[in-house]
């Protein structure tokens, strides 16, 4: 795979996308909760509950690119991240890594599967409390025969050094570290298998502001030195804005807008993106009096028909109730999924 990429590069061909998603869908069934079980016990017909967490997403991440993903909680960001990382298989559609189908890591452990790694919000939960740091970092590289057992300690020292931790961390356990240090350990572990793509799912959300900045800097440094691609997921737009080359905005399982970062922020097109940006608290602008987003996020179990944003949309047209817009490019290269906008373009 590495050979193929460098070969294409020598021939002056465009590099393949690191990640390509084609019409990817993933749903979850809801296990009946107490209220459902009571209703069923009293003779109601069990309602079939399926939730479309990711509903037909097309997306690419170029080599060396940081793609940011934002949206309200429950919109499907983590599910999309897990699909990209191969730790959750799609119901339909394709996830390609360097042009090849992504390994389904839930079934097979292959070396190509190592090419995409994931970092989670809660570093404490991601680490085994009984595993020493040296073992946490070298477990996968040894299992996949990337390194010899005899090299493990030297390898781990280097891996820790890359994330700013000292050799004396090797024989310690996760609880002996602060939250920021634990996230560094998770990053070192993810990078230990030389991935090309790292899915970062809210990687700084559980950290304090002053530590958050240290970890964001680490992500920026590693991207430069290792030419990594990131899918960088966060509900915090100021964080995503800072690290991303492009930003995708997600709403109820679908991408509603996708554009270069500067372009998206200077010229948000989708009414949802506009509302979202308007609500981000900043130091330089007081809270506007006007609230741009009506109502609450609809239940994902019964999403609105047509455009899923139409019940909250200030510019919704009659047509939006029945017809689902597609994510289409505008002349500016900005992609947006909105019938009202494409009508004008």
């Amino acid at each position, binding site marked *: 795979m590495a050979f193929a990429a460098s070969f294409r590069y020598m021939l002056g061909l465009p590099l393949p996308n690191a990640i390509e998603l084609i019409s990817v869908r993933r749903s979850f069934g809801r296990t009946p909760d107490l209220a459902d079980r009571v209703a069923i016990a009293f003779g109601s017909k069990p309602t079939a509950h399926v939730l479309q967490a990711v509903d037909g997403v097309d997306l690419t991440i170029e080599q060396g690119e940081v793609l940011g993903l934002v949206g309200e909680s429950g919109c499907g960001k983590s599910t999309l991240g897990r699909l990209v990382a191969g730790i959750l298989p799609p119901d339909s559609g394709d996830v390609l890594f360097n042009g090849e189908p992504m390994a389904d890591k839930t079934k097979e452990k292959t070396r190509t599967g190592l090419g995409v790694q994931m970092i989670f919000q809660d570093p404490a939960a991601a680490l085994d409390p009984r595993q020493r740091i040296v073992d946490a970092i070298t477990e996968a590289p040894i299992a996949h025969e990337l390194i010899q057992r005899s090299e493990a300690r030297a390898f781990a020292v280097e891996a820790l050094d890359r994330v700013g931790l000292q050799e004396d961390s090797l024989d310690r356990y996760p609880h002996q570290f602060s939250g920021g240090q634990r996230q560094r350990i998770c990053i070192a572990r993810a990078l230990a298998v030389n991935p090309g793509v790292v899915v970062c799912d809210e990687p700084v959300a559980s950290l*304090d502001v002053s530590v958050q900045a240290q970890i964001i800097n680490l992500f920026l440094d590693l991207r430069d030195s290792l030419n990594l691609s990131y899918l960088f997921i966060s509900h915090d737009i100021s964080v995503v804005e800072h690290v991303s080359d492009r930003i995708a905005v997600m709403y109820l399982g679908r991408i509603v807008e996708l554009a270069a970062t500067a372009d998206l922020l200077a010229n948000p097109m989708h009414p949802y993106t506009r509302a979202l940006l308007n609500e981000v608290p900043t130091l330089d602008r007081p809270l506007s009096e006007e609230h741009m987003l009506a109502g609450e996020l609809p239940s994902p179990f019964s999403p609105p028909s047509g455009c899923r944003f139409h019940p909250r949309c200030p510019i919704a047209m009659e047509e939006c109730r029945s017809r689902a817009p597609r994510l289409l490019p505008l002349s500016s290269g900005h992609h947006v999924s909105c019938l009202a906008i494409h009508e004008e373009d």
Partner: protein
Amino acid sequence: MTRTGLLSIQGLRTEFSTPDGPLAAVNGVDLEIARGDVLGIVGESGSGKTVLGLSIMGLVDRPGRVTAGRIAFDGTDVTAFSEAQWQGLRGNRIAMIFQDPTTSLNPVQRIGTQMIEAIQAHRDISSGAAWQIVREAMVRVGINSPDERLAAYPHQLSGGMRQRVVIAIALLNEPDLIIADEPTTALDVTVQSQILRDMRRLCRDSGSALIWISHDLGVVAQIAHRVAVMYAGRIVEQGATMELLKSPSHPYTAGLMASMPANSPRGQRLVSIPGGLPQLSNMPKGCSFAPRCTRATEACEVPPDLSFISPGHGVRCVFPLHVGAALAERN
């Protein structure tokens, strides 16, 4: 508008006894809040914000204890109040809103029932009259179909809706002071901004004073007239919001602001504060921020006194920033 004092805190110290010895979660805090004031308290996790809020509410539980200082509420010293005395104040003249609304709601009781009981605990009023008050309170916090929500159980509402209900309950008895402890931290920005707007309006209308606690300076800046920055149990800087944001004087405040992604050019490394919070059980002798501070010298090995950069803008630092600038502006 002249603002008269409502809450006055002097030298407040709240300690927890732990296996490693006593630990001061709140370590000498002074605060003054007037009627109608909105004070924001910012600090990173573990800085003592929640314990400060609980101390003001008389809710510190063992192994914690207020060990020093004085809290006066509307002229009455409440520091030595009995639990019975507290129950007359709490939920009535002082209300607290917590980050997790489920802790404040009874899961097996309908919302409406809980709200009516909250009123009747403090007022002799018929259930019919209470129901009217409850409906109005729901509408005031932006809940449009109150009857439907009042009939619901807490788990049937979204997180944002639950937090609105808790706010409606806090406002029921028109308290003089509301302490809101990170009420929007678990919510999306879209819901957060709505709640911030509602709280701002409600406090304006009712004249209630508000203490808004958050780890996010951006959120506090949206709502507070004054900001107090907390670090390791102490308030290290305090001032009018605009003034404090324009000229942060404590190196920690300046560092917090600088480390916000919006304050660095896109894609560039952020300014970060080296190191992490000190352990409360093993605090530095003098200024608790000194081990992380680039300006620190031996002079910082004694706890710094509060000094004033300008009227109302106080800082606990031997080498505050912007002092020259502030003085020049005043002259």
